[in-house]
C-alpha cells in the first residue's frame, strides 16, 4: 500500500476484477491467484481462454505457472533484480513508452541509470532465470496492447516489500501500462475487508480515507466532528506493540477479530508480548489462541449475523446483510464497541450500522457519496465523491492521484535471513485453496476435506533426507519448531519448503522471521531458514 501510495498517490488496486477477462497480457508475480483469490484466478483463466498471454513469476510451480506462456522461476527474494532486469531489456530494445514517461511521470532518468547495471546476464545469475525467458517476458509485457500486473503477498511480505511494489510501479510506468481499462497495477488484498480496515483508518497514522493524523486541518475537522481533542502523533504499528508490551510502555491491548499468536511472524515473541500486558481484551467469534491468553473475551458475531459493508480488493464497497440473529449470547462487534464507549463516558448512540456509514461519508471524501441504500446489490467502487457519483472503475486515468507518477530507483536487497549450514532450507509460506487464514478450520466440511498441513518438499531433497510421502517431520528455525506431514512435489524447487498458515497443529509462524519491511512493518513471511529433521 505504501509503495503504490508513493508511486501513484493511492495504495489500491488500480483496475477492476471484471476487466481481467479482457486483458491481453497478465504479469502475475508473487500471487497464487487460483488458490488465494480463487474467483480472480477464474477470471484469469477466462482471459487465457480468450487468447491472453500469461507471465508468471514465482518460485513454485503453481497452477497458473502450468498455464503460463512464460514462467520465471526466480530465487525467492530476488524480485527487484528481476524487475530491474526486465526494465533493462525493455529500454535496451526501445520498447518503453516515451510519450507516457514524458507526459505523466517524474524521476525516470535515475531509474534508467540504476537499471543499467542489471544486464540480462547479471540478472539471470542473481535470479536463476534464463536470459531468453527474461527477454520473452519483457517483450510480451512491454509490447502488449493492454497489460496488467497482479501481485499479492509474495511481493509485500519481504523486508523489501515496499521497494518490490515500487519496482512494479516503475515497470508499469515505463511501458505506459497504467491508467486505462485492463491496464494497471493490482495488489490483491488478502482478507475480506483488509481494504476496508485501511479505508476506515484502522491504521496508526491516518483517519478514515487516508487523512493524516499529523495534518492540522484534518485533526481540526475530526476534533470538531467528535468533540474531543485528538493526538496528532502517529501511534504504534503491530510489531511496535509487542516490543512496547515487553518494555511495559504498553499496558493494555484490545484485540478485535485477529489471532496474532497464530498469524504474526515469530509467534513465540508475540506470545511473550501478550503475556507481558497488564490487561488483554479479545473480541472474537472463536476461542482463538490469542483469546486463550485474554483477561476478558467478548463474543462477537459472524458475517451472517450482522449488517454493514466490506470493501473488496477492487475498492468495491458492498453490503453485508444480516441473515440470522447472533449465536447464543453474542453481540455484533459494532454493538459491543458502542456499549464500551458509552460506559467509558463517551456515548456512541448509533441506531444502526447505516447511521455509522452516514458519519463515515460525512468525514471521508472518498466515501462521501456512499449510503447503504445506494450500495444496494451492486456496491460502489471508491472514490465516490458525491451522492450522484457512479463510483470509479479504474484509477489514474489521465492523471495520477499524486499528479505525476513517481519513478523510484531501487536496488536489489537480500532477505533478512537466508538458509545457511544450520538451517539449510528456505521456508516460504502462503495459502491453499481449501482454507482461509486461521478461520476455516472451524468449518467442519472444509476441515474434513483438508484436515492437515502438508509441507511441500522437492523429491531430490526428500530422497536425500530419506523422507517418504506423508511422513511427519520436524521443522525448526532459530525461533521455534513444529511437526508437520510432508508432500513430495516438484511444485517447490530443490532447497525450498512451502507451508501454509492455516493449521493450529502446525503453526507455521513459530518458524517465520519477525524481520519486517522498513516502511509498512510487514513481516517477512516469505523467506527464512529452516531445518528439516526425520523423526524416527
Amino acid at each position, binding site marked *: 500500500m505504501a509503495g503504490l501510495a508513493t508511486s501513484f498517490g493511492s495504495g489500491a488496486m488500480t483496475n477492476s476484477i471484471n476487466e481481467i477477462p479482457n486483458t491481453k497480457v497478465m504479469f502475475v508475480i508473487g500471487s497464487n491467484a487460483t488458490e488465494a483469490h480463487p474467483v480472480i484466478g477464474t477470471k484469469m483463466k477466462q482471459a487465457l481462454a480468450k487468447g491472453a498471454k500469461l507471465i508468471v513469476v514465482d518460485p513454485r510451480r503453481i497452477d497458473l505457472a502450468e498455464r503460463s506462456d512464460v514462467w520465471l522461476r526466480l530465487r525467492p527474494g530476488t524480485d527487484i533484480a528481476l524487475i530491474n532486469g526486465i526494465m533493462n531489456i525493455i529500454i535496451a530494445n526501445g520498447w518503453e513508452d516515451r510519450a507516457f514517461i514524458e507526459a505523466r511521470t517524474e524521476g525516470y532518468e535515475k531509474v534508467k541509470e540504476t537499471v543499467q547495471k542489471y544486464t540480462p546476464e547479471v540478472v539471470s545469475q542473481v535470479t536463476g532465470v534464463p536470459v531468453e525467458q527474461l527477454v520473452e517476458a519483457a517483450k510480451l509485457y512491454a509490447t502488449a496492447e493492454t497489460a496488467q500486473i497482479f501481485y499479492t503477498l509474495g511481493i509485500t511480505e519481504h523486508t523489501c516489500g515496499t521497494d518490490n511494489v515500487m519496482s512494479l510501479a516503475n515497470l508499469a510506468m515505463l511501458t505506459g501500462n497504467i491508467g486505462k481499462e485492463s491496464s494497471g497495477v493490482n495488489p490483491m488484498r488478502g482478507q475480506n475487508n483488509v481494504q476496508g480496515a485501511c*479505508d476506515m483508518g484502522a491504521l496508526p497514522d491516518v483517519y478514515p480515507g487516508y487523512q493524516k493524523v499529523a495534518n492540522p486541518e484534518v485533526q481540526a475537522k475530526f476534533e470538531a466532528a467528535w468533540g474531543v481533542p485528538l493526538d496528532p502523533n502517529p501511534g504504534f504499528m503491530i510489531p511496535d506493540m509487542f516490543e512496547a508490551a515487553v518494555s511495559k510502555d504498553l499496558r493494555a491491548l484490545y484485540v478485535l477479530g*485477529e489471532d496474532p499468536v497464530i498469524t504474526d511472524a515469530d509467534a513465540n515473541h508475540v506470545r511473550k508480548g501478550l503475556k507481558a500486558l497488564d490487561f488483554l481484551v479479545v473480541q472474537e467469534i472463536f476461542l482463538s489462541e490469542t483469546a486463550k491468553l485474554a483477561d476478558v*473475551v467478548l463474543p462477537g458475531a459472524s458475517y451472517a449475523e450482522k449488517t454493514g459493508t466490506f470493501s473488496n480488493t477492487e475498492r468495491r464497497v458492498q453490503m453485508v446483510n444480516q441473515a440470522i440473529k447472533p449465536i*447464543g449470547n453474542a453481540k455484533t462487534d459494532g454493538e459491543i464497541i458502542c456499549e464500551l464507549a458509552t460506559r467509558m463516558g463517551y456515548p456512541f448512540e448509533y441506531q444502526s450500522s447505516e447511521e455509522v456509514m452516514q458519519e463515515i461519508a460525512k468525514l471521508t471524501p472518498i466515501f462521501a457519496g456512499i449510503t447503504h441504500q445506494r450500495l444496494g446489490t451492486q456496491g460502489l467502487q471508491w472514490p465516490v465523491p458525491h451522492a450522484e457519483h457512479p463510483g470509479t472503475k479504474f484509477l489514474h486515468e489521465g492523471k495520477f492521484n499524486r499528479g505525476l507518477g513517481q519513478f523510484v530507483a531501487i536496488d536489489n536487497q537480500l532477505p533478512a535471513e537466508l538458509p545457511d549450514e544450520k538451517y539449510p532450507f528456505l521456508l516460504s509460506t502462503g495459502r491453499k485453496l481449501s482454507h482461509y487464514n486461521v478461520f476455516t478450520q472451524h468449518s467442519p466440511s472444509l476441515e474434513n476435506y483438508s484436515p492437515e498441513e502438508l509441507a511441500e518438499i522437492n523429491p531430490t531433497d526428500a530422497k536425500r533426507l530419506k523422507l517418504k510421502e506423508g511422513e511427519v517431520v520436524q521443522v525448526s528455525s532459530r525461533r521455534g519448531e513444529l511437526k508437520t506431514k510432508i508432500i513430495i512435489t516438484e511444485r517447490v524447487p530443490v532447497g525450498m519448503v512451502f507451508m501454509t498458515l492455516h493449521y493450529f497443529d502446525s503453526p507455521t509462524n513459530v518458524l517465520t522471521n519477525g524481520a519486517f519491511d522498513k516502511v509498512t512493518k510487514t513481516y517477512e513471511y516469505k523467506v527464512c531458514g529452516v531445518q528439516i529433521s526425520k523423526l524416527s
Partner: protein
Amino acid sequence: MEWLTITIDGREVSVPKGTTVLDACRMNNIPIPTLCHAPELTSAGACRLCVVQIEGMRNLPPSCVTQAAQGMKVETQNPKVRNARKTILELLVANHPLDCMTCQKMGDCSLAEYAYEYGVTGEIYQGEKRNLPIDSGNPFILRDPNKCIMCGKCIKACTEIQGKSILDFSHRGFNTQVGPAFNLPYHESDCDFCGSCVSVCPVGALVEKQMVGKGRPWEVSKVQTTCPFCGVGCNFDLNVKDGKVIGVTSNPDAPVNGKALCVKGRFGMDMIYSDNRVTTPLIRKDGVLVPADWDEALDLIATKLGEIKKTYGPNSIAALSSAHCTNEENYLMQKFMRAVIGTNNIDHCART
C-alpha cells in the same frame, strides 16, 4: 446499435442486431422453456426444448442458437411447437427417476416445472432406466447420474466459468454419462469443488450435500451478502430456514463473481455453527476463563482501561482492529481508540 423488427406470436418487437430469438422472446417477457441454456454460458442447442416455428424455415429451430433477422415471424406456442417440446420432455422423463417427493431439487427443478406445464405423464415411453452409482465420496457435492438429463451445462460451467474442464460426456447413446474422466468420483478427480456445476444444474443430478434434507425452496429465504473469505468480494445468497443458515447458493446478479464461487465461499458457511464459537463473555478468574454476563464484562473492561489510562496515559493502551469485521465496525474501533481512549495506537494485521 442496429435494431431489428421481428414478429413474435403476432406481436411486433424491436431487438438489437445479434440477439438470439430466445433472448428476443425473453426481453419481451415471452416465456420459452430451456434446459441447456444459461445466460453466462455459450449456447449448445442441445436440449431442443426451446424450439420455435419460424416462417420460411423447414424444421423447428432451437431459439437459443438462432439469430433474430429483420422481418422474422416467430411462433412460440402453436400446437406443433408445443407437441415437439412435449415429446422431448416425455423422452427425458422416460429415463428419469420419478422420486420427486424425496428429491432435494423438488420445487426448483426445471424438468418437473416443464413436465407439469406440458402435461407430461411419463407413461408414453416405457423402457430400461439407468441404474448408476451415486457419487457421494466428497463432503460438498452429491452427484446422481441417474437424474442427469445431459444438458451439458455443468460441462460448460466447469470449462467456461472455472477453466478446469473436469467434466465431459462419455459413452454413447443410452449409456451416455456426464462426469470426470474415466467416470471417477469427484474427489478422485482434479475438481476444485467450486460448485459452479451445481449452480447451473437444472435438475437434481448435482446438489449441495450440506443442504440435503435441510429445507425446501419455498421454506427458504435468501439473503444476498458478501463472502467473508478473501478479498475478491464475491456475493452469494445465504439460504435461511427457521432462523438458521442451511447453505449458500449463487446469486447470478453478484457484481464481481456472477455464479462463480470457490469451495470456501460456497461450502464453508458451516463455520457459523462451529462448536468453537464463543457464545458468552468470559472473564479470567483465578487464572481460568469463566462465563460472565455482559454487564460484568463490559464494566470490568471500562474500569480497567480507565485506570490504565489514568495511571499510564492513553498511549499505554492499543488496539488491533480487524480485516474480518465490517467498515462500520472498523470505523467505530478507530473512533473508540482516538476519541474515547485518546491514542492513535490502532493497527490491523494487513497494512501491506
